[in-house]
């Protein structure tokens, strides 16, 4: 048994994901990050919303919570404020986080609450059979865009940075070591963090855009993976189809929300209570 398997709940195997789905790779990378940091499973909670990625908590041998569609961050906020000492990880898909859950995403980022989000971007609603999502590339065919997707997709990193997220990074499921490393860094970051993991949904999205094999779709992702430096040199037109990887935003000079509440609000309140008593 490898050290990272300590964080895996084998009793609930096999996983429900399609053969070659990137979700299993993200599951393993997170377990490896836990293992590298040697965190006590009791100090970890993995929370997820609804979708293929939503089923991931079932396979972690830690505290786990499978919530409602788009709302994992709200449950996690309640957990983090109650237990600021715990590592609160949220797993969310592109639909779960940026469509129905978008409002909670920008508020969690604005608050800078110490939740560690892993946003799995496979550009489609996989669980429900392959509908278009806010991150589906334009022109792609899906179950709900049979004539090609006309909607422009979000740039999640820019959206999150604008919402004042203090740690934003991106990796892909092809680059498992870098993915684990950036997840580890996000765990060590104080405040809200998002790691976007570009993943392959070849069964739904790939099949309708001649990439029905996981290896073929993995190559499609690899061709669009660029470093931040390369990305900055590109023209806006070129940039739209590229995924710059690595840490895109890291700002450590802001307080984490639950620390700010427990240290500053509670102490200020107790002082004002003492003063009133004296009056």
């Amino acid at each position, binding site marked *: 048994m490898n050290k990272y398997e300590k964080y*895996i709940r084998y009793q609930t195997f096999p996983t429900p994901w*399609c053969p070659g789905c990137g979700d299993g790779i993200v599951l393993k990378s997170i377990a*490896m990050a836990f293992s590298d940091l040697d965190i006590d499973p009791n100090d970890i909670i993995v929370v997820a919303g609804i979708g293929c990625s939503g089923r991931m908590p079932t396979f972690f041998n830690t505290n786990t919570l499978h919530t409602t569609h788009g709302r994992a961050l709200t449950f996690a906020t309640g957990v983090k404020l109650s237990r600021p000492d715990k590592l609160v990880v949220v797993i969310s898909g592109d639909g779960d986080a940026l469509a129905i859950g978008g409002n909670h995403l920008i508020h969690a980022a604005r608050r800078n609450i110490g939740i560690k989000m892993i946003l799995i971007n496979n550009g489609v609603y996989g669980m429900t059979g392959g509908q278009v999502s806010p991150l589906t590339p334009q022109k792609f065919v899906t179950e709900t865009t049979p004539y090609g997707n006309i909607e422009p997709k979000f740039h999640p990193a820019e959206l999150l940075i604008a919402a004042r997220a203090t740690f934003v990074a991106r990796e892909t499921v092809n680059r498992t070591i870098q993915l684990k490393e950036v997840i580890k860094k996000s765990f060590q970051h104080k405040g809200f963090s998002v790691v976007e993991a570009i993943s392959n949904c070849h069964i739904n999205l790939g099949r309708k855009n001649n990439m029905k094999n996981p290896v073929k779709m993995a190559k499609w992702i690899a061709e669009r993976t660029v470093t931040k430096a390369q990305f900055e040199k590109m023209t806006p037109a070129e940039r739209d189809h590229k995924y710059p990887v690595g840490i895109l935003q890291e700002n450590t000079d802001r307080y984490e929300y639950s620390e700010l509440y427990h240290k500053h609000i509670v102490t200020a309140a107790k002082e004002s209570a003492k003063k009133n008593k004296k009056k």
Partner: protein
Amino acid sequence: MDREEKQINEAALEVRKKKQPSKKGNAIELVSHYCKGCGLCVDSCPTGTLLLEDNVSSKFGISVMVDAPEYCIGCKMCERRCPDFAIFINHEMEKEKQ
């Protein structure tokens, strides 16, 4: 196996041609009932050790097999990229270390 799955095997064999068997033996452990035959490990292997094969007893009728164990260099790229915890390299040694 479909055309694309055959291409994954052909690519692996191409890679193997340019490699030599590794001096140090490595233990490759397959957890066959978890393997869904996706081929990601075959694609990840830098020495073409693994291939896909039709397998009636596997849920998806296809699974990975160790075609040339002597070529394995123990880099674990296959283990890292397996979504289903179905392949481990030197798994036994890891156990003793704990």
